[in-house]
Structures are given as structure tokens and as C-alpha cells.
């Protein structure tokens, strides 16, 4: 019973992490490489867990959000750098959520402008009811809908032996090249994103979690890590089975193609895409508003009414509506934006992770909850791998002949 009371931030942030951009990335990965990169997704379970677990400890011990923790720990320069970095990437990611939601609803005949209006109204109602707990339980309901990909995968009857044979043994299909680096980075970027660090820590604080709740927070985060990768794996299996070798631009296109083979699998993909976009939008817009509120000292809790926290809610709605409007711009390159935003997010992730690791090694603040040796080894390795991959992608962009 206590777990159900404490659970929330970890599961919500991890499942919301399978946002519209994520669904597109997984769908495209399956179509491009079949099952061959499933092993890489499985590795992302401990990667996501170790990174996000640090935010639980940091939030529960310091009772501060991530933005405020960076300002206090590293000073105003790094604080503003991180905050503005977060704002920009969050806003871009929010645009991709609206891209996903509008493209999935178009399949069912709903025009984009109606989807944008409907989503803004729904999200407004969710935050304006005035309680963090209510918001969290509604978000968890949307998280449950995110599991819709699982029955979709069973419906198409994939070959289990092929999945195990091709997918679980590490391999680099097509060899090292610009495209592979791009997909690896996009998959990392969709599993750990800077907004997740800020969101989970602020949610832990807003929820009122204490140090004694950390073990439950860890379990919550672990379950979330497993869930997020399970959903990712099933999406890759769906497109890897039916659409392998087919060029996919986005998940909505994948849904339409799937509908020709299996109506239900395609419909589930479309519903799941909308749900993923909505969950992502719910969390990302909050992550930004919490971060700004923490730094500027505004009232910034969902437990505050709009009159008590006007700037918090103003920031929330301005970010949300402006991102929604981008999607309505005629001929905007929406698919390209979706894929690139994932890669930009993962490229900037090491900077956020380095600050997180340094904060968790501050014994004065963290006391008994300071990072242990293994935590430091694992998280530092994650940072190094991401920097190396980003660099390889950068080199392969500048010198593509090097990898041919």
C-alpha cells in the first residue's frame, strides 16, 4: 500500500520518456534494423535506472529541484547555462510531442488545430485542479495506456527465435557509419533526456518525499526503467516484423502501413502515439515550469491554485501553446525536427549528467546518501559513452568518407 502511495515520479517519468519522439525513433529503428538493436535497448534499463535514481536521492535529501540544486552547487553562471539549455531543449521536445499527437489524430480524421486545442484544454484541466496527487494519478492512467503496444506485438505473431537470435546478441548492423551512430544516439536520447532529471527531482520534492522514502523511490524508478524499455522493445518488434526494410518517416506513417497488414496493431500504434505525445507534453511542460519557479522563487507547486502561483502557470501555458502553434505552420519539416531533437537532447545530456554526478558526490549535502564507488563508475561510464558516440556522429557528419 505504501508503495502505491510513494510510486509515481519514477514510473511517470520513465513511461513519459516513451514520448512521441521516442515512439517515432523506436518505430524507425525497427523498420531500419529489424530486431538487430534490441540488445542495445535492453542495456538502457540499468542506464536509465542509475541516472534517474540519483535524482530521487538528490530531491529527497536536499528538498530542492534540480535547477535550484545546480544554482546553489555551481553558482549563477552554470545555473543559467543549465536552465536556458533545459528551456530550449524542452520546448523543442514539446514541439515533437504535438507533432506526434496531431499526426496520430489525423489518421482518425481529426484536424491538427482541433488536436492542439483539445490537448491544451485537457492539460489545463489536469494542472488547474490544484493537487499534485490528482495530477499524478491521472498521469499514471495515461502511463497504463502506453502499454497498448504490447498486445499489438502479440497480434502480429513475430518469430521468437529470430528475436532472440538477431536481437539479443550485440551486433552493429551495416557496420559503423553515420546512420548507425544517429540511431544509437537517438535511442539513448529517447531513454534518458535532460528534462527527466529535472522532472523527477522536482516531482519528488512536490510530492513531499523524505529520505526514508528513498527505497520506495528506487523501486518506483526501477519499475519505470523496465516498463519504458519493455514498451520500446515491443514497438521495435512490431515494426521490425512487418515493416523491416521499409523507409519510415514517423510513427504515424508506420501506423498507417501497419493497418494494411493488421488493422488492430496499426490502430494500437496510433493510439499509443497520441498517448505518448500527451504524456510527454504533460511532463515536459511541468519540468520547465518547475525549474523556472525554483530559480525565480515563485510559488511553483501543483498544490497551489492559479492565483497563488500565477507565473508558474503562465510559464506552463505559454510554453505549451507556443509549441502547439509550431505544428500548425504550413510545410514545417516536422519529421526531421522530431528525429533531430532526440539527437540534440542526447548530445547535451553529458553536461547535465556531469552536474548530477558532482552534486551526488557532495558529502556535505548528501551525507549517507552520497554516491558509492560503483554508482560513480557506472554513471561516469554512461557520460563517456555518450560523449564518444556524439563525437563519432560529429566526425561522421564532417568526414562521412571515414566510415565508408
Amino acid at each position, binding site marked *: 500500500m505504501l508503495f502505491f502511495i510513494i510510486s509515481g515520479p519514477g514510473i511517470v517519468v520513465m513511461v513519459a520518456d516513451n514520448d512521441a519522439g521516442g515512439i517515432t525513433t523506436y518505430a524507425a529503428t525497427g523498420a531500419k534494423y529489424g530486431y538487430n538493436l534490441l540488445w542495445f535497448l535492453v542495456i538502457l534499463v540499468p542506464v536509465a535506472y542509475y541516472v534517474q535514481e540519483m535524482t530521487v536521492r538528490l530531491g529527497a535529501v536536499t528538498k530542492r529541484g534540480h535547477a535550484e540544486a545546480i*544554482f546553489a552547487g*555551481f*553558482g549563477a553562471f*552554470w545555473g543559467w547555462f543549465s536552465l536556458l539549455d533545459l528551456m530550449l531543449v524542452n520546448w523543442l521536445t514539446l514541439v515533437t510531442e504535438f507533432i506526434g499527437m496531431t499526426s496520430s489524430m489525423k489518421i482518425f480524421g481529426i484536424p491538427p488545430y482541433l488536436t492542439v486545442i483539445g490537448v491544451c484544454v485537457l492539460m489545463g484541466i489536469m494542472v488547474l485542479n490544484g493537487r499534485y496527487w490528482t495530477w499524478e494519478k491521472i498521469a499514471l492512467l495515461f502511463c497504463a495506456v502506453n502499454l497498448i503496444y504490447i498486445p499489438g506485438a502479440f497480434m502480429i505473431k513475430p518469430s521468437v527465435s529470430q528475436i532472440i537470435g538477431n536481437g539479443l546478441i550485440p551486433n552493429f548492423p551495416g557496420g559503423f557509419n553515420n546512420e548507425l551512430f544517429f540511431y544509437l544516439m537517438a535511442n539513448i536520447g529517447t531513454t534518458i533526456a535532460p528534462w527527466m532529471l529535472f522532472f523527477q527531482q522536482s516531482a519528488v520534492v512536490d510530492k513531499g518525499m523524505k529520505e526514508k522514502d528513498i527505497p520506495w523511490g528506487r523501486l518506483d524508478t526501477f519499475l519505470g526503467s523496465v516498463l519504458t524499455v519493455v514498451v520500446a522493445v515491443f514497438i521495435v518488434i512490431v515494426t521490425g516484423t512487418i515493416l523491416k526494410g521499409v523507409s519510415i518517416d514517423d510513427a504515424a506513417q508506420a501506423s498507417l502501413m501497419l493497418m494494411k497488414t493488421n488493422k488492430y496493431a496499426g490502430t494500437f500504434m496510433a493510439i499509443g502515439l497520441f498517448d505518448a505525445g500527451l504524456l510527454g507534453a504533460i511532463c515536459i511542460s511541468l519540468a520547465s515550469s518547475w525549474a523556472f519557479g525554483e530559480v525565480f*522563487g515563485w510559488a511553483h507547486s501543483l498544490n497551489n491554485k492559479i492565483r497563488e502561483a500565477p507565473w508558474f502557470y503562465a510559464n506552463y501555458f505559454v510554453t505549451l501553446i507556443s509549441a502547439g502553434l509550431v505544428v500548425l505552420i504550413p510545410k514545417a519539416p516536422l519529421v526531421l525536427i522530431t528525429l533531430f531533437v532526440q539527437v*540534440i537532447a542526447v548530445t547535451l545530456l553529458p553536461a547535465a549528467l556531469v552536474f548530477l554526478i558532482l552534486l551526488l558526490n557532495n558529502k556535505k*549535502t548528501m551525507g549517507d546518501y552520497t554516491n558509492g564507488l560503483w554508482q560513480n563508475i557506472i554513471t561516469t561510464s554512461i557520460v563517456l559513452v555518450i560523449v564518444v558516440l556524439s*563525437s563519432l556522429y*560529429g566526425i561522421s557528419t564532417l568526414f562521412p568518407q571515414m566510415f565508408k
Partner: protein
Amino acid sequence: MLRNFFNQNFAKVRDINRKYATPNIEMSGWVKASLLFLRFYLIFLVGLLVYKFITLL
């Protein structure tokens, strides 16, 4: 009214800069330099991505 809005917020930013002028975590010179290098290196990589994005448009 707009002028007041900006003046108030600039004053707020100055307050924040004063409040967080002294970091809690002591960083040696090489740690600060490494962090700064990492930041600019990553921004360079993002610049490359933006370049790639523009070439694909």
C-alpha cells in the same frame, strides 16, 4: 507596463545572481576548466547537428 515588467525581471535576475554568487561545491580550477570545455564542445556538436539539419531541408 512592458518596461516595468522587464525592469522587475532584470532586478530579479540580479538578485538571483547575488544569491548564488558563491557556489556550495568547491571546484578546483581544472574541474571548472574541464566543465567549460565540455560545455563548449557539446555546443559545437549541436552546431554540427544544426548544420546537418539545414543541409537535409
